[in-house]
């Protein structure tokens, strides 16, 4: 029975008093039915998108690529990878887009969950248990790191989180290699398939379409859960406080709320998402390396995906993850007829896309789409409510 009063969220925010009221659990009854429909719609729309996603990415783009003679199609495994990063950045966005905290150390949670899941798989090779164990470890790690880092704000917070992440990276690469297998990478991960190994993860889901694997279906289900949970959070009074914190921390404090506690909670929640993603990553790749798991560039990638997709919108960052992974893994291998291989330029391409998006559409890809949609419908595009683009939908 958490409140579904997001409809008047933007009105409520400037008035701290309303926020307190929300925390008390007051939830409106009259407009509930209409809003409920809209709330669930995000999940339903996501489900629909997930059904066609691999087909569009692999088969359709592949067919287009064959026609134009440039390999732009995806490959089996890419859709799952995009969703895994999508799950992570949905959580990351709760921290960056709503609460306004820029963490540069989320690879620590991603990586620690990945390694815990990998180690756990040596004992019990169950994908679902691996996700649970990974998530628990990431959560437990997030508490002390958050506890220390959140005491500082802005750049100091970012640097503190970065430091923790890098400490883990160097530990995993050198001294901790007895556990992580260091630079040789942790392989030999056995995820035996779902339902006690009855359904292997790399099996085809539907006989004809080999773009759909059981792993993809598994990832898609986790993704839907993530969207649903994220949606519940941002539409709850708790989520409203996150958003209020992003807009004006002092006011929230004056209202009498424990700012530290809410920030810590936002930090931990985002780490839970990163943990789920990390464990899923290991199940998907059956391999993990310190550079992928824990290096600061991974943390930076989360930030880029989130900003690219659109901070402050629930599913926007997923679009960011899609564009990022597509450029990194498909565009990087494209050879153009005259220019030749653009592999070495993929980071440049990504940078150009990033600059363009941030410059022209400060609210990210999602913001651009929703503005475009409104314009097509003949309505005024929504104005961002706050300067940092922390506006939802």
């Amino acid at each position: 029975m958490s409140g579904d009063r997001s409809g008047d969220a933007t009105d409520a925010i400037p008035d701290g008093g309303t926020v307190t009221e929300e925390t008390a659990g007051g939830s409106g009854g009259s407009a509930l039915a209409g809003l409920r429909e809209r709330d669930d719609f995000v999940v339903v729309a996501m489900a629909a998108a997930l059904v066609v996603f691999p087909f569009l990415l692999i088969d359709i783009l592949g067919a287009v690529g064959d026609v134009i003679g440039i390999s732009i199609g995806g490959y089996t495994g890419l859709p799952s990878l995009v969703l895994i990063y999508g799950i992570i950045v949905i959580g990351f966005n709760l921290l960056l887009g709503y609460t306004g905290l820029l963490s540069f150390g989320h690879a620590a949670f991603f990586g620690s969950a990945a390694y815990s899941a990998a180690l756990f798989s040596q004992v019990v090779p169950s994908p679902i248990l691996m996700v649970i164990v990974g998530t628990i470890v990431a959560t437990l790690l997030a508490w002390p790191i958050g506890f220390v880092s959140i005491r500082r704000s802005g750049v100091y917070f970012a640097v503190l989180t970065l430091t923790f992440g890098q400490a883990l990276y160097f530990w995993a690469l050198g001294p901790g290699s007895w556990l992580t297998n260091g630079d040789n990478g942790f392989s030999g991960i056995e995820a035996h398939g779902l339902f006690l190994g009855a359904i292997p993860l790399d099996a085809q889901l539907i006989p004809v379409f080999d773009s759909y694997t059981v792993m993809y279906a598994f990832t898609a289900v986790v993704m839907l859960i993530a969207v649903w949970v994220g949606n519940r959070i941002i539409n709850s009074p708790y989520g409203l406080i996150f958003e209020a914190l992003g807009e004006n921390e002092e006011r929230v404090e004056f209202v009498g709320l424990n700012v530290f506690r809410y920030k810590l909670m936002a930090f931990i929640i985002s780490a839970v998402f990163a943990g789920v993603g990390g464990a899923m990553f290991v199940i998907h790749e059956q391999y993990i390396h310190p550079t992928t798991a824990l290096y600061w560039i991974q943390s930076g990638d989360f930030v880029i995906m989130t900003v690219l997709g659109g901070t402050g919108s629930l599913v926007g960052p997923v679009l960011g993850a899609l564009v990022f992974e597509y450029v990194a893994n498909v565009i990087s291998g494209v050879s153009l007829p005259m220019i030749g291989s653009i592999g070495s330029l993929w980071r440049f391409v990504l940078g150009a896309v990033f600059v363009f998006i941030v410059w022209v559409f400060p609210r990210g890809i999602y913001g651009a789409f929703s503005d475009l949609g409104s314009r097509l419908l003949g309505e005024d595009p929504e104005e961002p409510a706050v300067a940092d683009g922390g506006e939802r939908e």
Partner: protein
Amino acid sequence: MARDTTALSRRDVLKASGAAGAAGLTGLAGCAGGGGGDSEYPAIGNYPVEGDEVVFGFNVPQSGSYSQEGADELRGYNLAKDHLNNGGGWVDNWDGLSGDGVLGKTVASVEGDTATDPDTARQSAQRMINRDNAIMITGGSSSGVAIAVQGLCQEEKVQFQCCITHSNDTTGSECVRYSFREMFNAYMTGQALAPVLAEEYGEDLNFYQLYADYSWGQTQQASMEQFFTEVGGWNQLESVPTPLGTSDYSSYLSDVPRDETDVLVLNHYGLDAANSLPQAIEAGLDEDMEIVVPLYNRLMAEAASGSIDGIFGTADWNWQLEDDATQSFVEVYREEHDRAPSYGARIAYTQTLQYAAAVERAETFYPPEVIRELEGHDYSGAGLGDETMRGCDHQAQRDVLVMQGASEEEQTEDKLLNIVSTTSRDDIGYACDAGPAAECELGEYGDE
């Protein structure tokens, strides 16, 4: 606000379902053309190869610190592809290679960027395997990448031909059936370097090591300790780890006891060495002791060119070698690129031709048969005299070059190092149940 979103989303759904319908039609159309393939062996990995092209995947660092090295590897690969299709270079001299493609199929290639990052490399290899149907993947300029990709290739039952990877583990504890290494390893560096240094600097010396704290650095320093102690009767004072990617080594270097240390070993590679070596020279350590870098590469020799005078190290191969194979490779490479190839290009070229030759001998692309052809294969004409691709760990048994940095007056664009000696493969290497090979279990061919 709520109403707007719903309307918009409904449009989206309509559009999406329209797209899905169109997509479904295309999919069905594509299905009708699906083919089986007529071959004597069962399908495995990307076998059988359909059509009149066979795809090789060249997976090299194209961005990041090692992109120069990757670019040179790629030149080697493209030269190999060109020669396999049109003749020329070693293709004219090697048995079985026709200069008319491989088994009559034209060699095509796809390229990818490893970014010297194991997971990026795996994604790239995955794309080549799943989307582009590559029958063989090759490349990489670090052991982390090689081990990551060869693990994937073993799972996918696609051949992997290592490029630059020097860690013992590649053909040791992490070895796989589907991967072969032409390059030598840290263990062999120790074996090649120790006798030369013992003769040059004397016996009963004290040495001090710094090593990059990751798998390669760890195995490298262990091998150096083992052979310096055994061969020269030297005594290790201390071996200190430094984090990978350190840019300032002054605090580590200032801890080196100048009075006691006779030899300082910098177990750093590439850019790490390009930082640590000049800093050691600048700190004046070369006045009190001798400095050794175990593994030279062009990147590092260029970046530290002012500091390498007289510094010993090993290399895979060098264009200054005088044998026919080397000279013909250098010549064809120069024709195209106007400078001498680095050893990365030689390994790339060799590994591609080796795979092609094995396919010709096996008379099929069926991976288990190709692997059996490569295992225990004796060959020469790859620039290093007689070599054997050993069956028990897939490590080439070959000579190793001991190099010394050239003085600045001597240096040219291509010539940064001098060849001191070639240590014969009879004096280095280890049995299948010894050294790194003892830890190697290759895994399945896939047709058991």
